[in-house]
């Protein structure tokens, strides 16, 4: 970790009481859900991290507390530094404040997390499914969601399978 990033991390640790963690050569901070918008705001405004590079989540099912980790990577183009934020979330109604105001590209990325993990983003202007069809049930990237398959249709069972298919009928 270079010195400048080290300084920023130690200031943040002191100010917000977050926990630093070095994974490989990537510096990450473990942030509680209440503090995430404050930290993002100060990284964006004061420390010059204007670009949200990655926003994703990991599911640790069957663990429940915390079940999800939401991961932010912020990047500073001026200083070529990357900082990671990891937000642990519970399995029951996971929710985070939205970052759309700070980083415009968070809009679709948060929609993707809602679609794929069922993580709710409070204050998001348009939280709809983005990749899956609008009437899809469940959140596919959760670990308790089966990979799924479609049964192959042969002449002897074609009609039977057809009958149970969920697509629109006449």
């Amino acid at each position, binding site marked *: 970790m270079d010195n400048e990033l080290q300084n920023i991390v130690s200031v943040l640790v002191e100010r917000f009481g977050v926990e630093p963690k070095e994974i490989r050569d990537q510096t990450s901070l473990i942030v509680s859900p209440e503090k995430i918008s404050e930290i993002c705001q100060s990284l964006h405004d004061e420390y010059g991290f204007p670009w949200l590079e990655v926003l994703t989540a990991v599911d640790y099912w069957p663990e429940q507390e915390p079940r999800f980790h939401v991961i932010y990577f912020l990047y500073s183009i001026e200083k070529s530094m990357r900082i990671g934020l990891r937000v642990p979330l519970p399995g029951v109604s996971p929710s985070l404040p939205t970052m759309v105001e700070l980083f415009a*590209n968070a809009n679709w990325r948060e929609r993707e997390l809602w679609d794929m993990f069922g993580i709710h983003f409070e204050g998001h202007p348009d939280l709809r499914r983005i990749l899956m069809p609008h009437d899809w049930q469940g959140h596919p990237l959760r670990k308790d969601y089966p990979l799924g398959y479609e049964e192959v249709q042969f002449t002897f069972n074609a009609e039977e399978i057809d009958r149970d298919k969920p697509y629109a009928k006449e």
Partner: protein
Amino acid sequence: MLDQSEFAFNELRHLVSDRAIKGETMLLNMGPQHPSTHGVLRLLLELDGEIVVNCFPDIGFLHTGIEKNMEAKSYEKAAVMTDRLDYLNNLGNNLVYCMAIEKLADLDVPVRAQAIRVILTELQRIGSHLVWLGTHTLDLAAISVFWYTFRERELILDINEMVSGQRMMTTYFRPGGLWRDVPVEFEDAVRDFISIFPKRISEYEAMLSENPIFIERTKGIGVINPDEAVHWGITGPMLRASGVNFDLRKVEPYMGYEQYDFNVPTHTDSDTYARYLVRMEEMRQSLRIVEQALDKLPYGPVRSNNRKYVPPPRSELGTSMEAVIHHFKLWTDGFEMPKGSVYAATESPRGVLGVYLESDGSTKPHRVHWRTPSFDNLQMLPVLAKDHLVADLVALVGTTDFVLGDIDR
């Protein structure tokens, strides 16, 4: 389940302006099957005459659940899926995936493999830009450029086929190096391409750069100022055409990019024409990199010797019991990765392509997330398209240079 038409109305209601509900503006679907949307993209347009009032991209038609599927496959098998993401930058996808694994497992990559990786991904960058140039100008009704660019792209695909047996879905880069060494004809084929291509770029430029129709259609269209570009997470040539000099090949060199001498073209006009100029110059710079890498292509092995991750060569199987065990273990189970998470990023033809990989210590990845450049670049389209003509929207779709496989994953 809602009735389809009822749903369509509910979906529209909160997106469009009140004027659309009163019938003052027109709602129009562009796509999913529209020739200029470059794949299956649906753009819901609210039009006032010919002016775009609102534009809502609807994506997901090409969603193949690659991130989910990768979790169910061993690391080596999952590599095959990476080709299918951004289908104009297959080798680039292989590269970033392998880089993530190599970073997490501390796996070494021999220098020859690194140089060949650079040569092939740079050729792929040229190939991708050629598709962009061809289809972008095709959308602007300049059909001849398309035929020329695809003629040259064919040479690149031939090189792909020569090294890997496949024109597009190569899976040529493997964790720890390459699938196998390049054939002897490789060097001549690349040299031929290097000698032909500069003239061909000049040919395209002769057709377009001073073409009054092309200039009319592109100058001043879709201006993105630098702050806005960063705010929207735009990367790649689009960002550089807005005057931000940011290229991961320079900022965080990987695969030995620091040894090569090349420039990062930028432009300050920030419009569609500037993006055209930047991409044309990028092709020239890529060619410079390819030439330098080929000139000092070292000899040696192309795959790491770490038998825990890389299968032993065929010759060893007859003589070494250990090699047989490794072979069996790798092709039945796959390799076990150390626990942890890693993020690797590269500069793809479209921008920053990253992989976030998390391992739980087993032979299958716990989570693979693809940070794809097209996903962010397309997000800005509604902002760009606002108050432009529908015809300009087509130019904007072209200049964004997205690949739907990259967006929908």
